[in-house]
C-alpha cells in the first residue's frame, strides 16, 4: 500500500497550452496498492489534468515522441523511463520540443 505522494508536475515548451496555459501543478497522488510510477502518473494526468487533445500529449501508454520528460532535472532515460518509481516531493517536467523553432 503506497502512501499518498506530493509531486510537482510542470509543463514547458508549449505543452502547457494543453493544460489551460498553467505551467506548474502541485499534485497529490492518492495512496494506492502499487507504487506510483511514471506510467501510472501519465494515466492520472490524462484523467485529471489534461483539458483537451490527449493525442497531442500521450501516445499509447507513453508520451508522444517529441516530448521530453525530466525527473528532478535529469533525463528520464537515465532513470528507467516509464518504470521509474516516484518519490515524495519529486518534480516531473514535460517539455514539448515540437512547438516553435
Amino acid at each position, binding site marked *: 500500500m503506497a502512501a499518498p505522494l506530493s509531486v510537482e508536475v510542470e509543463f514547458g515548451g508549449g505543452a502547457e497550452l494543453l493544460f489551460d496555459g498553467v505551467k506548474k501543478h502541485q499534485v497529490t497522488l492518492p495512496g494506492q496498492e502499487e507504487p506510483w510510477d511514471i506510467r501510472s502518473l501519465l494515466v492520472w494526468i490524462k484523467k485529471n489534468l489534461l483539458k483537451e487533445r490527449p493525442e497531442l500529449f500521450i501516445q499509447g501508454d507513453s508520451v508522444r515522441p517529441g516530448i521530453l520528460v525530466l525527473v528532478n532535472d535529469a533525463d528520464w532515460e537515465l532513470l*528507467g523511463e516509464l518504470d521509474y518509481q516516484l518519490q515524495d516531493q519529486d518534480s516531473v517536467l514535460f517539455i514539448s520540443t*515540437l512547438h516553435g523553432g
Partner: protein
Amino acid sequence: MCEMSEEYRESAPKGSPPPRLGTRDQKCVKCKEGLPVVVIRAGDAFCRDCFKALYVHKFRAMLGKNRLIFPGEKVLLAWSGGPSSSSMVWQVLEGLSRDSAKRLRFVPGVIYVDEGATCGQSSEDRAKTLAEVKLVLQTTGFPWHIVALEEVGRPSLFEGLGVFSLPPSVLRCFAQEPVGTESAYKAAVDSFLQQQHALGADGVERQSQHCAQDPHSPAGPPTTAQTQALSRLFDSVKTLTAKEELLQTLRTHLILHVARNHGYSKVMTGDSCTRLAIKLMTSLALGRGAFLAWDTGFSDERHGDVVVVRPMREHTLKEVAFYNRLFAVPSVCTPALDTKAPEKASIHRLMEAFILRLQAQFPSTVSTVYRTSEKLVKAPRDGCVAGPRCLLCMCTLDVDTADSATAFGAQTSHLPQMQPPVTQAGVAAGPCCCAGMGGGPSCYRGEDPRAQVMEQLCYGCRVNMKDLPSLELLPPYILSEAQIRSQRATAEQEVQEYLLGDSEDEARTGES
C-alpha cells in the same frame, strides 16, 4: 565468440531492463566522474558541465569550420522566440563576452517578426507577447528590430516595414561578393585583431551598446486594414501546407529586406538538426528536391548579397531543450499556425510525426538524414548558365519548358498550338493551359495575371500556389515584380525574334 557471449550473460542480470535504460549509477561518459543528467545520441550520458561544454563547442565549431563569417561583419539573428533560436541568440551573447582570444568576432543584431495576424491572435494577446519579447531583447543588449508581418509603411520618417510595403527589389538577387578564400579569412582575422589592440579591448562592446535601442522601430502597432488584408490572404489559402509555405516565404522576404536596409550581410537562423531533417523530407514531398542543398545546408546564398547561415544545424531538439532548461535560457512561447493541429493537417506535421516516431525506435534516424543532407552539393544544372529565378523562393528555376516529354513539361509548354504535346496517361495539355493553372502560353500572358505569376515560379512554389485561388490577395510587391519580369521577358523575346528573323533569312538565301 564463445567468450564474448559468456561476458554478456554475466553482465546482464536476469529480468533487468535492456542496457539502454541505464540506472543512475552510470557515470558521465566524458569525465567519468560526474553524475549524468542527460542522454544524448544513443546511450551517451553526460553530466551537466560536460554537456554544456559539448553544446557550446558544437556551436563554435560549426561557425569556425565553415569560416563564412568574417570579423566585424554585421549578422542579423532571426529570433522566433522558440527554443532553438533563443538558444542560438544566447550562444552568440555568451560567445561575444568571452576573453579576447576565443571571442566571437562579428556584430550581431536581432530581429523578431510578429506573425500573430496569420493565426488570428487578438491584438491584446499580441501586445502581451510583444512586451515579453521586448524584455528579452533588452537583456541581450544587441540592437533589435521588431517587425509585424503586415505593417504598413509610415510616411517619410521611417522606412515602411512589413510585407504590404516591401519594394519589388526584395525579390531580386544582387551580385554576389566572391566568397573569401582561406588566406583571405586569416588575413581578415589578423587585421581585425590588430585593430582591436589599437582601439582597446572593449571597442566592440561600446559600439554595440550605442544602438541597443531599435532606431527604426515604428511608432505603433500595425493598422487594422493591413492586419485584415493579411488575415484575408491566409484565410483564402485552402490547405495548411500551403499556408505554412507561404508564411515562410513572406517571413524570409521581410527579414531579407530588413537585413539589406541595415547593412547586415548575414542572417543566422536557429534551425536545429531535428528540424532540418524534417524539413529535408518535407521539401522532397513538396517538390523542392532540386533545392535541398540550399534549404538545409549550412549556408544559403541564393539571395546574393545576404547569406543565410544555420549554426544550430548539429544540435538536436532534445539537446536544445535540455540546455535551455538547465541554463535558464529565456524564450517566448507563441501560438503558431500549426499549434494543436492534428497529425494529418499538413505535410509538415505528417513528416514531423513520421520522423519523430521513427527516431523513438531507431535513434539514429535524425542523424542519418542530417548526414545525408551534408553530402548534398550545390552544383548548377548541366549546360545552364545562371537561369531565371523563382519569383517566391528565389532559387534558380528547375522547370524545363523545352522538355515536352514529361507530363509537367507538357503542362508548361509555351506553344501548345504549334507542337502537339506528348500526353501522358490522364494528362491533356490543352485543357491545362486553358485553365490558366499551369505555366501559361505566351499568347495568354497579357490577359491572365495568374498565368503570368505561375510561369515565374519553380515547381514547388507552383504546387503551393494551386491552393491559393486568387493571387490578387498576395502583397503588391510580388505582383509588381511578376509584371516587371513578364514585361522584360516579352521585350527580350521580341528582340530575339527580330534577330532570329534576320539570320533565318540569310540561311534560306544561302541554301537556295
